[in-house]
């Protein structure tokens, strides 16, 4: 009985020693799938301001590309047509009519893609050590660097009637932003952009035209 207790005690002590090394720092989940890092944000006015009065829109065919100027952060034009078509299709589903005369439009739709690269450095400071014969010392710290490039697809809706002539003040009434890691195959990027733009509109049902 004493021996069994001793063995059990040793096992439990080993468990505790291992647990204490990782205690508090438990974050059970981490994904390597870029699609799982996509975020859709829609910014809007007070919902009471949307009364279905927006029916006609004008939209430029070109998609603005905005980078942070970091080396290697040029934006491909491969997705411009997809973005334009998805926004057009979602607005049509909401009952909007596209016009090509700014004077007759209720809102102005603008499209943009942005990207930026962030750099990170992790520093590791290992513990000191003791050695037989030559005494103790310290391991040298080391660092590792990595970068993450994120991109955003931004759809902006501006109320033309709220624009004030002679000033730069504009009245943006809605903004849909899809943000995610720029990574993956072309087909996966197509799928993610398409799903993200759809999500921008599906969580903005107040935009529907009457």
């Amino acid at each position, binding site marked *: 009985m004493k021996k069994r207790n*001793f063995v059990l005690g040793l096992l439990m002590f080993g468990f505790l020693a291992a647990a204490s090394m990782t205690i508090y720092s438990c974050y059970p989940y981490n*994904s390597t799938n870029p699609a799982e*890092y996509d975020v*859709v944000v829609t910014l809007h006015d007070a919902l009471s301001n949307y009364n279905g009065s927006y029916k006609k829109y004008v939209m430029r065919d070109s998609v603005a590309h905005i980078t942070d100027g970091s080396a290697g952060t040029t934006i491909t034009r491969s997705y411009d047509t997809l973005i334009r078509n998805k926004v057009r299709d979602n607005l049509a589903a909401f009952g909007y009519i596209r016009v090509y005369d700014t004077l007759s439009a209720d809102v102005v739709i603008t499209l943009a893609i942005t990207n930026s690269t962030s750099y990170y450095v992790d520093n590791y400071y290992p513990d000191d050590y003791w050695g037989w014969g030559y005494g103790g010392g310290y391991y040298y710290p080391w660092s590792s660097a990595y970068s993450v490039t994120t991109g955003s697809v931004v759809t902006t809706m501006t109320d033309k009637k709220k624009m004030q002539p002679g000033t730069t003040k504009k009245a943006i009434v809605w903004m849909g932003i899809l943000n995610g890691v720029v990574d993956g195959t072309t087909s996966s990027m197509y799928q993610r952009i398409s799903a993200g733009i759809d999500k921008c509109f599906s969580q903005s049902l107040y935009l529907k035209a009457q």
Partner: protein
Amino acid sequence: MKNIKCLIIIIVLVLMSSVRSNAQYNNEVFLSYNLGLPLGDSKDYVSTLSYIGTEINLKRFVKPNVSLSISFSWNVFYKESSDMISLPNADVSGKQNRYINTVPMLAGAQYYFGRNTNGIRPYVGANLGALYLGRRLQIGVYDITENTWHFMLQPEAGLIFNLNDYSDAVIGLSYNYGTSSTSSITGKSVSESWIGLKFGYGWKNGMFY
């Protein structure tokens, strides 16, 4: 965090030592597996049951039916969510990982009903001390972490099973409450509370006798 890890190791080593007694024991070390059911503000943030939890508890019997204790425990609450977050002028969608790590460090007293030679003894107790709390929200590539200290209360009750002259088993239920503070994640004043259920094994007079 390194200091907390060192403190844990020291506490573990201290708990390994004890005064040996052939007639009766004065000290007992319990190691338990803990479950946690979040309540209140904790449930609003992470509503799922915690299956990751452990506790080490040192009891010193000052009388046959009264013990003083210090305990050190840890629970992880985790929830994966795709729910849309609605803010006053924005809606946010994306896969979220929400975490709560609780590390209570408590001292208290327990009262045991019946004789210490009984097979099963109910007990009640109360503990108080400090709660080290970590909350984390991951959404997209964005990660918000906050670490705070709280004052904590823990009433408890349970059953101790006298297995033999050297060991006990314990089943215990506790209510855990950490006082409120303003969360940098939600911007609101939140407190932490959960129901704890533990299943433990105890070594009379320490682990190595």
